[in-house]
């Protein structure tokens, strides 16, 4: 087999591996402030605690995360965050910088979101999305961050629905009100791109199908 063919085959396989979702994250929004033990029970019952990544130190700065390769090699291909809406005085497991709960052997694998990630505002109704820090419980200069890039319409006080008529604009890669525009704003403001982009209606890909500068993680 010619060397070019071998290289080509290897590259094809490599690209395929990269494109697969080798690592997945979930963010649990604990709306009813259930005790962490309740979640730990479910995780253990289905065996997900064994797949979940457990950092040795917390909080974990953006620069402290392992590479995708090392996560895959270690077999820990799930990252678990929990949104912290709980009152730490009444829900003692929610401690800044501490895991929300631990698996067998006290291996911590559920990370409190806001000590590790900061967020921009959500339920934004202005298509000129800014990139200001809206919620955090840590050092935003070192935390990962997430932008809430979904446009809402407020139909009555406190009631927001997705601005679906503007989806083509909101979920576009470039242009006014687009994902790309907000990321540019973020780069200007913070010098690094967001780690996560929250969108409504995952048809985003349709709008950006011609883009080549978006890579899988």
């Amino acid at each position, binding site marked *: 087999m010619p060397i070019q063919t071998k290289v080509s085959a290897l590259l094809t396989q490599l690209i395929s591996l990269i494109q697969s979702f080798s690592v997945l994250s*979930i963010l649990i929004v604990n709306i009813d402030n259930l005790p962490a033990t309740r979640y730990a029970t479910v995780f253990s019952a289905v065996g997900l605690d064994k797949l979940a990544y457990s950092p040795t130190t917390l909080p974990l700065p953006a620069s402290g995360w392992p590479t995708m390769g090392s996560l895959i090699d270690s077999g820990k291909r799930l990252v678990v965050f929990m949104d912290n809406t709980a009152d730490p005085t009444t829900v003692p497991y929610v401690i800044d910088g501490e895991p929300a709960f631990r698996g067998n052997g006290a291996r911590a694998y559920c990370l409190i979101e806001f000590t590790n990630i900061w967020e921009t505002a959500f339920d934004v109704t202005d298509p000129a999305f800014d990139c200001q820090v809206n919620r955090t419980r840590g050092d935003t200069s070192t935390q990962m961050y997430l932008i809430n890039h979904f446009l809402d319409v407020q*139909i009555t006080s406190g009631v927001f629905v997705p601005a679906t008529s503007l989806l083509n604009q909101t979920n576009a890669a470039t242009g006014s009100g687009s994902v790309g525009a907000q990321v540019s704003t973020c780069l200007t403001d913070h010098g690094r791109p967001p780690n996560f982009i929250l969108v409504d209606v995952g048809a985003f*890909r349709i709008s950006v199908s011609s883009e080549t500068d978006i890579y899988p993680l």
Partner: protein
Amino acid sequence: MDMQSSAVVVLETSPSLVLITPMPLEPLVRLINIFIFVLGLTIHSSWFQPGPIRSAFQMPVMIEADHVLIVLRQLNDGIRMLQLQAHNVDGAIKLCHSTCVSPSLNVLLSTALIFIIAALRWRYSRSVFKNRCDSPNPFPSYI
């Protein structure tokens, strides 16, 4: 708070969530639960990390739901983080939207997690051994 009261979109309505009202029989509920999750649920506010672009299949937008693509499609499309809105429903942890309108129609957290494990394992083996990323829905093979 309050990611919940505000981040949540009012209408709890991925298309298949309005299809059926199951009988209160546990095995049936569980079966329907799996069905809804795998074939219909579009987990509220899936988190998107830029990923590969796939074919242009799209379910029709029926109303202002957060998502119109099922979870599996979203994963295929490059979604790398899913947000699970967890509620306490009569002592069980279930995933539903701003409110659990019809508890029996909402997905148990455990169902979602089982699916996630299966998806992770499936994608990993495929990527290494089959060298493709965009095959048909694999759901029948592991449920």
